[in-house]
């Protein structure tokens, strides 16, 4: 098992119109490892600040430690791409990555989907790929009701069950 230096990363957790910014302690497991782990439903976060997605300055609550229910998360955003990628996804990143656009409650998310496939098939992707989350890199999440409110991250871990629409987006070159 790779030995990880113990460190703390700050990530943004989005659910039901709220954003929780909190610190996740990386010891033996990356944040992505914990998120993808089907054997656990919960995730511990420290120094967590809750605010509505449209007003980040309005800090509604502070929790010294809190436990998040992964089944209720819509998506998680990390500033550093490496904090959001599983180990196997890091290797895939150099091969193919598709520009995708998808929607979850309150957000439209654009980013790049690392993939070992040559073409992107949304239906196959949503029905055949394993895991309750998917990972996009170089992500911009735009708030549905206030398009000027955007969140950006190196990686986003997005709950499959939260995705309403997904498709390959056209780039400017196309």
């Amino acid at each position, binding site marked *: 098992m790779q030995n990880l230096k113990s460190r703390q990363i*700050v990530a943004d957790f989005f659910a039901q119109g709220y954003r929780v910014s909190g*610190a996740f302690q990386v010891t033996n497991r990356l944040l992505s490892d914990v998120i993808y782990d089907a054997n656990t439903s919960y995730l511990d976060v420290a120094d967590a*600040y809750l605010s509505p997605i449209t007003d*980040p*300055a309005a800090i509604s609550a502070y929790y010294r430690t809190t436990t998040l229910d992964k089944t209720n998360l819509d998506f998680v955003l990390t500033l550093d791409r490496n904090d959001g990628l599983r180990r196997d996804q890091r290797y895939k990143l150099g091969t193919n990555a598709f520009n995708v656009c998808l929607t979850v409650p309150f957000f439209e998310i654009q980013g790049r989907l690392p993939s070992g496939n040559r073409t992107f098939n949304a239906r196959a992707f949503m029905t055949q790929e394993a895991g309750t989350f998917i990972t996009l890199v170089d992500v911009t999440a735009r708030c549905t009701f206030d398009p000027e409110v955007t969140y950006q991250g190196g990686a986003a871990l997005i709950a499959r069950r939260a995705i309403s629409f997904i498709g390959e987006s056209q780039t400017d070159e196309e």
Partner: protein
Amino acid sequence: MARVLIIDDSPDVIQLLATFFQRRTDHQVVSAKNGKAGLALAMGNPPDLALVDVMMPVMDGYEVVRKLRADPATSEMGIIILTARGQPVDQAAALKAGADLHLPKPVNLDVLADAIESVLAKARPVGPKRMVIPVISLRGGTGATTVATNLATLLQQVAPTTLWDLSPASGHVALSLGLQPKSHWGSYLRDRDQRIADLTMTASSGLRVLCAPPMPGVYGWFTKDQVARVLQAMSEDATFVLVDMPPTLDATVAPILQAAAKILLITGDDPPAIQTTLASMQVLRSASDRILLVRSGARPDRLMDTPSLEQSMRLRVHIDLPHDPNQPLALNRGAVLARAKPESPLVVALKRTAQLLLTP
């Protein structure tokens, strides 16, 4: 050299930033580990720049910034928000709260260094370059020392301030501030080589004070040149210089009156006070445009209302100080009312006085 306040609940961040400042700048650094403590530090002695974290318990960084901008003492200082919340919306929120700059953590130290110098360069100067304010009452017991000490304490919150107790007869400034006058200007009169800076004492508010000797008549009195030299020394590194003036106005104090931006002349409403005020106005007639007439609140009873007082003197009362029973209590405790009870009526009135002085 600037004074920088770091407000962050992470001891590691404070340590890192303190080391950064020590190695790469000559700025003086103070720190607080939560927003409430940081705010209190800033209000007590306003820094030139604050580095403020957002995610802190008790009071978050946005609230700290809003409160700093809302207070005249700290509204003009430089503020950088330094936070792990690095989203564009967080940057917009930081600027909306009043910060000059938003930097996401972890921060590149070179970027931080540039940001600090940029914000310090832009930070507007607080108040005028230097302002000499003599506080005069040629009749004892009108509360001139109370006005001088409390006003000086309030102005210290805005910019570096010095207070010179020029009373020849055992002045009470030290008593009002809870200081023991172990060093005083009597030593300078004995030995002209004494540095005035070495003779000043510092009150808990940061106010620098040149006390009067506790024993009157032992050290002699100033010459006009000596007054000018002491005034010059008291003005170094100070924006406001308050002087609790002696009860007689003669040529020796002319340098102070000439340098004064505003002169606070304290009056009462009893006949001797009125007579003395009118005589003072005659002596000071060449400076009449700089005089602010202050009605004393030293006595609880009033012999006449202010309009009647104005009519009897044919002078306008610029500042009407209320009688405040908290003042003698504070004096008994050796505490200055402006710090002990900032919401008390006298202090509130003196805050308005400070605003008046700061208005061009």
